[in-house]
């Protein structure tokens, strides 16, 4: 390869020097719109706005449910809604999504019943929805492990001659795990149609980005695998949607995987059980409050005359209905059936499990008897 074309290859893989941004924090369009990306339609932005209002409400409601003891724990994505909604809106229904524990809002946006989304955190079962039907993998806890699954799924689609894409969501901290590395490398070598979407919310629980990486940006990891990369303002829904739509199209067209890093911020603590005051100060959180993705999009749409007071009120109303429904249904007590513990370990239980199943049945019968006494 000539030095010139080498230089072009390298430039083609590196992200833009600063995050792609369409809309400034106050909602006004940036002076120079980023080259190479198509701005989403007003229609799409209005829909995104509605989804963000719903997502935000779902999130605050879920946090409230932890206080009422209805959820053991909830990892909020407040502040990250541009990413949560942008990711889902960039996908087709037949594409696959591989989310983490923090991506509940994305799942609700995808159309999964909010109660099923919360089954895991309610403690009823490990995954409450049907991943096969929704094309959403179970929310993944072991960090970065699902990035490989997404790569495998993308590769499976490619081999079956389908044009589905897989999108893997991760946080900034998860990029440090070996599995993240292996996934990007496998995807690049196989040219699997997968989009790696890193929500860099600046913290991995308490550990700040500077202790996680010394890279100029996480998006610079792409070139080491020959993976096209981009970084985007993660609180600018317009930019997130534009960049992810482009990335998905790239992957779908058979040009291989894409890595996108979104710069965003986790407004709440890691989960309701976490105490964020131990590792970050209020000013920082406040500063990011002014970058709120929802009010930014709202201001933007209003300035463009694409959103009326009535529209906003309608979205709020829909959100309140969602929250009310969620409250009602989450306040209903559920019971889990202990005998189900043996049902899904294998397609057919082993003889050992049958014995243990009988043992538990006997134990439960005995307890029932004792309680009758």
């Amino acid at each position, binding site marked *: 390869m000539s030095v010139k074309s080498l230089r072009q290859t390298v430039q083609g893989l590196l992200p833009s020097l600063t995050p792609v941004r369409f809309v400034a924090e106050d909602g006004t369009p940036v002076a120079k719109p980023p080259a190479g990306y198509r701005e989403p339609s007003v229609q799409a932005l209005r829909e995104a706005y509605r989804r963000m209002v719903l997502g935000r409400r779902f999130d605050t409601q879920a946090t409230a449910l932890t206080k009422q003891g209805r959820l*053991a*724990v909830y990892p909020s994505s407040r502040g990250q809604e541009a990413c949560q909604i942008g990711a889902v809106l960039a996908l087709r229904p037949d594409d696959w999504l591989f989310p983490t524990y923090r991506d509940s809002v994305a799942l609700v946006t995808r159309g999964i019943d909010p109660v099923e989304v919360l089954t*895991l*955190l*309610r*403690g*009823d*079962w*490990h995954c409450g929805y049907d991943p096969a039907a929704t094309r959403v993998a179970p929310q993944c*806890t*072991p*960090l970065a492990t699902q990035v490989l699954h997404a790569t495998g799924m993308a590769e499976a689609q490619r081999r079956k001659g389908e044009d589905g894409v897989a999108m893997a969501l991760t946080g900034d*901290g*998860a990029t*440090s*795990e*070996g*599995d993240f590395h292996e996934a990007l490398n496998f995807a690049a070598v196989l040219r699997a149609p997968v989009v790696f979407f890193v929500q860099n919310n600046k913290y*991995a*629980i*308490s*550990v700040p980005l500077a*202790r*996680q*990486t010394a890279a100029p940006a996480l998006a610079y990891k792409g070139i080491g695998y020959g993976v096209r990369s981009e970084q985007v303002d993660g609180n600018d829904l317009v930019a997130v949607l534009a960049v992810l739509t482009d990335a998905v199209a790239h992957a779908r067209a058979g040009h291989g995987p894409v890595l996108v890093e979104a710069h965003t911020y986790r407004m709440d603590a890691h989960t309701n059980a*976490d*105490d964020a005051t*131990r*590792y970050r100060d209020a000013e920082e959180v406040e500063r990011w409050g002014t970058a709120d993705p929802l009010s930014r999009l709202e201001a933007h749409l209003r300035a463009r005359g694409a959103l009326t007071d009535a529209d906003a009120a309608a979205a709020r109303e829909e959100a309140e209905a969602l929250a009310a429904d969620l409250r009602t249904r989450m306040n209903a007590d*559920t*019971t*889990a059936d*202990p005998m*189900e*513990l*043996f049902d899904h*370990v294998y397609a057919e239980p*082993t*003889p*050992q*499990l*049958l*014995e*243990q199943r*009988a043992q*538990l049945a006997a*134990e*439960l019968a*005995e*307890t029932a008897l004792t309680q009758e006494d």
Partner: protein
Amino acid sequence: MAETTQATKVTMAQALNTALRDALREDDRVLVFGEDVGPLGGVFRITDGLTRDFGEERCFDTPLAEAGIVGLAVGMAMGGFRPVVEMQFDAFAYPAFEQIASHVAKLRNRTRGRLTLPMVIRIPYAGGIGGVEHHCDSSEAYYAHTPGLKVVTPATAEDAYWLLRDAIADPDPVVFLEPKKLYWSREDTDLERRGALPFGRAAVRREGRDATVVAYGPSVPVALAAAEAAAAEGIELEVVDLRTIVPFDDETVTASVRRTGRCLVVQEAQGFAGVGAEIAARVQERCFHSLAAPVLRVAGFDIPYPPPKLEHAHLPGVDRILDAVDRLQFGDEPDTRHLLKGAVA
């Protein structure tokens, strides 16, 4: 020396924190690192205040990668330090499994003792706290089956303190398993006075003539509660707390079973090929002619750890232990459960 003076109520979490503090204070080579162990003090607060009091150089956060943490510790131990690393939860130690099995366990042997790894891998483990999947695995068998590792799990605050001090002082790598559900259990103890037995010795937590219950870590309080209940029915159970799984204290266990003639083993982990299997196997090997009944095991089922609402059904509790006691053939009747195949399945 420990900060607390005289017998006061301490939790296991406090005892562990104190042990780390005392070790950091007494030995410059001791370092504490892992995910969120710095300013946050760890998700269970075991390292609370260490960065503040000993500085970033002694207790620090690492990037998020468990093989990285253990591999870094191997290099630092080779370089003269005594790293004490934390894996955030049991299942999150698995990414480090190759480093642990292929290096931590083997470097001394590989180099004929020229390189040694005085390091401790702390792992909050096991269930009973309503944690979601991946946060409640009982992983002790993986480590106990790996020669070159020592495997420890305390059941009391006092043991937590002394076993951790001993582990840090040990010339060899120690996997230190902390039963999460006991972190907040309180007990009266004076950490400045060593009451704990030496490393490698099991403790007889309760004496009894009728049967020996061997337990460790999270199962010890359950075994003791069962012994209490059995006593009410006239059966005296002796409860042995292993404290260290490797090395294993055959002497104490064997002596007890030879005396009682019956033995039960309790573990939270899924039973198949677990540590309880090892205990049962070695007890019957060594005490066969003293045994009036088979050594029975009481364990979790051979299933992935259940969701929070179902963990009570999985974990061995007092009732499951008492059921097993009933099958120890005190009435001289052989257990026919396994003969009645059809009935069981």
